[in-house]
C-alpha cells in the first residue's frame, strides 16, 4: 500500500549538506504493523515526517495505493487517510480536548465515542474532555491526547512517533492493546517508531534503521532476542563489548 522508492533527504547546515536519509526503499503491505527502531539520530522521525509530507524528500518517490503522492501537501495526504502522531505534540490555547477530537474525526462523533477514544489512551474522559490542550497538561497527558487525535481519525495508514515517551507503565499495556484493536477492527496499517519491547511484540515486521539507512527488515523475535542478549551483557558487565569497568558512553 505504501512504497518508498529511493528516498534521499538532505538538509543544509552551516557545515554543508547533511544527508539524513540515504536511498530508502520500503514496501509496506496493507493491514500490517511495522515497528521502526534504531538508535537516536538514525532518521526514524525524518522518515515518518516524509511519509506525512511534513518534510519533502530531496529525491525519490512515495507511492500510496498506486498514487504518486510525493508532491502532495500534508492536507492532501491527510485526506487520503494518512495520519501522524507527533513525538512532541504542539499545544493550543483555547482549543479543548473535545474540540481537537472533533476536528480529527471525519464524521461527527457522539459523546460516548469521544469518551471511548480518550479511554483507549488511558484518560478519564470526564476529567479531560473540557480541558484545554495547552501547557496546563503534563507531557504524558499531551502525548495521550495526541495519540487519541490520531486514533479518532480511522485511518488507512497511521504513524506513531515514539508513542511510549512520557506514558507510564500502567497505561502502557492499554496502549498496546489499543494499537492492536486499531489494526484488527479498522484495518489500519500501523507504523510505530518505538524502542519498547511491548510495542515490538506487536510488530509483523521490524524495520531497523541506522545512520539514515534501513539496515535490516526482520521479524520481532530476532530483534527481541538481540535486545535480551544485550541486556544480559549489560547486567554482566564483564562481557560488555564496551569494556568492563571502564567509564564509557553507552547508547542503551
Amino acid at each position: 500500500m505504501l512504497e518508498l522508492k529511493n528516498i534521499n533527504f538532505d538538509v543544509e547546515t552551516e557545515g554543508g549538506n547533511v544527508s539524513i536519509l540515504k536511498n530508502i526503499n520500503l514496501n509496506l503491505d496493507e493491514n500490517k504493523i511495522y515497528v521502526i527502531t534504531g538508535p537516536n539520530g538514525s532518521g526514524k522521525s525524518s522518515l515518518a515526517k516524509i511519509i506525512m509530507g511534513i518534510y519533502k524528500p530531496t529525491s525519490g518517490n512515495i507511492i500510496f495505493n498506486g498514487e504518486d503522492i510525493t508532491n502532495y501537501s500534508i492536507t492532501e495526504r491527510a485526506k487520503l487517510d494518512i495520519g501522524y502522531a507527533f513525538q512532541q505534540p504542539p499545544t493550543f490555547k483555547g482549543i479543548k480536548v473535545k474540540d481537537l477530537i472533533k476536528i480529527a474525526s471525519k464524521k461527527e462523533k457522539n459523546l460516548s465515542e469521544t469518551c471511548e477514544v480518550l479511554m483507549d489512551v488511558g484518560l478519564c474522559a470526564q476529567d479531560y474532555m473540557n480541558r484545554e490542550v495547552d501547557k496546563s497538561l503534563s507531557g504524558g497527558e499531551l502525548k495521550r491526547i495526541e495519540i487519541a487525535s490520531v486514533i479518532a481519525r480511522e485511518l488507512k495508514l497511521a504513524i506513531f512517533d515514539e508513542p511510549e515517551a512520557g506514558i507510564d507503565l500502567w497505561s502502557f499495556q492499554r496502549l498496546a492493546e489499543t494499537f492492536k484493536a486499531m489494526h484488527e477492527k479498522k484495518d489500519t496499517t500501523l507504523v510505530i517508531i518505538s524502542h519498547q519491547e511491548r510495542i515490538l511484540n506487536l510488530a509483523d515486521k521490524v524495520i531497523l534503521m541506522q545512520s539514515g539507512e534501513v539496515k535490516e527488515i526482520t521479524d520481532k523475535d530476532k530483534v527481541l532476542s538481540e535486545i535480551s542478549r544485550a541486556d544480559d551483557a549489560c547486567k554482566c558487565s564483564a562481557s560488555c563489548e564496551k569494556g568492563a569497568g571502564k567509564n564509557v558512553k553507552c547508547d542503551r
Partner: protein
Amino acid sequence: MLNAIDKKILETVADIHDVPQGAYNIRKNGKGESRKTTKNIDIVTKTDKPGIDVIIKSNTKNESVHVPVILSATGLTDVVYNSFFVGENCDVVIVAGCGIHNSGCAKTQHDGIHDFHVGKNSHVKYIEKHYGEGEGTGGKVLNPKTTFEVEDGGFVELEMVQIKGVDNTIRDTEVTLHKNARVIVTEKLLTYLNQEAESNITVDMEGENSSAQIISRSVAQGNSSQKYHFNMVGNNKCKGHTQCDAIIMDNAKVVSIPEISAFNSDAQLIHEAAIGKIASEQIIKLMSLGLTEKEAEETILEGFLK
C-alpha cells in the same frame, strides 16, 4: 423603529435578536431609541449631560440590563455618560456594546464613558462588545472609558470583546477594589488592515484580601497596531495576576507594557506577557488532521480568542 442594519448590529454587540428581555436602553445615533425598566432596575436620563443612570436595587438577583448603542449615521460623534449603581447582594448581568454602521465617508465616533458603583457582596458580570461595519471609507472610532468602584466582598467579571471592524480605539479601564473584592478582566481583541487599538487597564487593590486577574488575548493582523498597558497596584494584602498574550501576523505591531506596583509587603503580583506568531507545528498538526493551511490558521485564532 429598528431596521435590519440596527437589528444586525444589536445581535452582534448584545447577542440579542430584537428588543431584549429585562431592562434595557437602546441608544441610536445620539438619542434614546427605546427603554424598559423593571421592578428592581430603574433607568433615568441624566439631566446635566447626555446619558443615563441605571439604578439596581439591593438584593436583585438573576436580572439583566442591556444598554446597546447603534450608530448608523455617518459623521457623527456621540459622547455618552452612563452610570450604574448596583445595590448590595445583587447578582446581575450588564451588557453594553456599540455597533457602528458607517456607510459614508466621514468619521463616526462613539465615546462611551461608563462608571459603575458595585455595592457590598454583589456580583456583576459586565459584557462589552464593539463592532464596526459599513462600506464607506469613513473611520469607525470607539473610545470607551470604564471605571469600577467595587465595595467589600463585591465580585466583578468584565468581558471586553472587539473583533475587526473598529478602525481606532483607545480603551481606558480603571478598577478600584475594596476589602475582599475581586475582579476578573477578560479582553479579546482582533485588529487588521490599518486599525489601531490601545488598551489601558489599571486595577487598584485598596482593600485587604482583594484580588484581580487580567487575561488579555489579542491577534494583530495586516498593518494594524496594538498597544497594551496593564497596571496592577497593590496597596494592601492582595493578589494580582496579569496574562497578556498576543499573536502577531503579517506586518502588524504589538507593544505590551507590563506594570505591577506593590506598596505593601503582603501584595503578591505577577505579570506574564508574551507576543509571538502561530507556531508552525500547530499549523502542521491541524493540517495532518485534514484541515487546509488557512482553515488551520482560522481554527487556531478562533480557539485563542474564544
